[in-house]
């Protein structure tokens, strides 16, 4: 009985959050006051949320590519398997999963917490109230530029990640002597389907939308003080990750099967 009530209450809360999330989206896509100002903010956000993430994306991608190559080689070290398979497997896991999904999860940690903390502290310091009082659509002004910026720039980050990951794999394979350069290069050209890149970029754009909106949601509805801003920031990352993982499964079934 008590358990049933608890479940019902939990369901109510989830529905409440989902309802309020879509309500916020409605506000975000409301009429902008000054397109020029929105555009200026979008460019700033591209720099802040995108370009400033380049370092971590590059570092992570090169190392992950190297590890993927070495692990693939040690896992399938058999005379029956041809030498190019390592390069092939590195390319496939990078393009299909590692670059779009893992990098998006990483960005959810970096960018998502940043968005929630920024918007959350604007909320608790009454800066959002100040915007509303002026007659500014605060949700649109604060959130829309971030959505546009991440959706535009994350595909580039992911393409750079793909390139560096495969490059890292090649370098690691060659340097450690486990895969010959020619074999690896043959592998990464083998049976290449451009659609896989399209699939990865579609995922990336959807994930960018999720990261930004879910994090902005947690920031925008922060109540209280600095402690609550911290909590919102953590929630933003956790919920973005969960939604990304579920969406990843759904999109993979829709787009790949």
């Amino acid at each position, binding site marked *: 009985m008590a358990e049933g009530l608890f479940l019902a209450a939990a369901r109510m809360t989830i529905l409440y959050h989902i309802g309020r999330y879509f309500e916020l989206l409605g506000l975000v896509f409301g009429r902008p*006051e*000054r397109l020029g*100002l929105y555009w200026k903010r979008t460019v700033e956000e591209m720099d802040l949320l995108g370009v400033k993430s380049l370092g971590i994306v590059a570092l992570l991608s090169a190392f992950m590519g190297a590890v993927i190559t070495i692990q693939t080689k040690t896992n399938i070290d058999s005379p029956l398997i041809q030498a190019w398979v390592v390069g092939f497997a590195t390319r496939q896991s990078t393009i299909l999963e590692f670059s779009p999904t893992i990098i998006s999860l990483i960005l959810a940690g970096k960018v998502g917490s940043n968005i929630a903390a920024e918007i959350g*502290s*604007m909320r608790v*310091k*009454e*800066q959002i*109230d*100040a915007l*509303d*009082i*002026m*007659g*500014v659509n605060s949700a649109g002004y604060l959130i829309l530029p971030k959505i546009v910026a991440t959706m535009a720039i994350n595909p580039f980050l992911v393409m750079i990640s793909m390139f560096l990951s495969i490059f890292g794999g090649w370098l690691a394979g060659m340097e450690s002597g486990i895969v010959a350069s020619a074999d690896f290069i043959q592998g990464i050209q083998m049976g290449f389907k451009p659609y896989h890149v399209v699939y990865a970029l579609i995922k990336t754009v959807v994930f960018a939308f999720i990261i930004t909106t879910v994090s902005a949601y947690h920031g925008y509805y922060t109540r209280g003080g600095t402690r609550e801003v911290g909590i919102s920031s953590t929630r933003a990352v956790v919920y973005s990750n969960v939604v990304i993982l579920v969406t990843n499964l759904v999109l993979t079934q829709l787009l790949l099967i």
Partner: protein
Amino acid sequence: MIEVRGLSKRFGKVQVLQGIDAVFVPGKVNQVIGKSGSGKSVLAKCIVGLHRPEEGEVLYEGRSFHAMDKDEKREIRQQIGMLFQGSALFDSQTVLENVMFPLKMFGTMPRSEMEDRAHVCLKRVNIVDKDGLYPAELSGGMQKRVGIARAIAMNPKYLFCDEPNSGLDPQTSIVIDDLIKEITDEFNTTTLVITHDMNSVMETGENILFIHQGRKWWQGGREDLFHSDNAELNAFIFAGDLMRTVKKAKTGS
């Protein structure tokens, strides 16, 4: 003119405001006074529509704010200038950008004119040569003053100031009080000042509303303060020696 009728506001189980009736007249510095936590800021936020009261209504020139559609509300809001208790300057923008923000958002003038207008406002609150600083680089009192400059940038018809002189020295405090009074006279704004500084009540208070435990306890002019027999009001005003001395000098008792 702003009219408040039977306004009640609750947060969860806490009844913050109960059945407030008040009229705030144009061209006068209307003040709301009361103890800390009595609901002054909440009242101001209900009036500007940041909080939705459970009961009652707020009328701007006789039109109910909550009955207005989105565009009408936006129109009213563009005529409101508000100084928040914590200033609420935008952290990511410099002093100049903060003051220019409403102009950029809604104004039609070229940038150089906006800058001029912002400088005029900043000068009125005695902030000069601080254009490029960020709010975090200002003292609390300076943030307040920049907040006032931003609030008056658009020549508001309704000016709300939540504790404009808390955290200011007595001298600057009087400058700010006088400034608010000047603007009110000059543009015939409906000004609402929240304060618990008896000095500014004596300096500029014209139509004073005393809130106690979320209810309207007393309303009247500055001079009436000394002749009221309202126990809570007297306890509030004459808490300090200074005001008791003033009363003695004025009324002889």
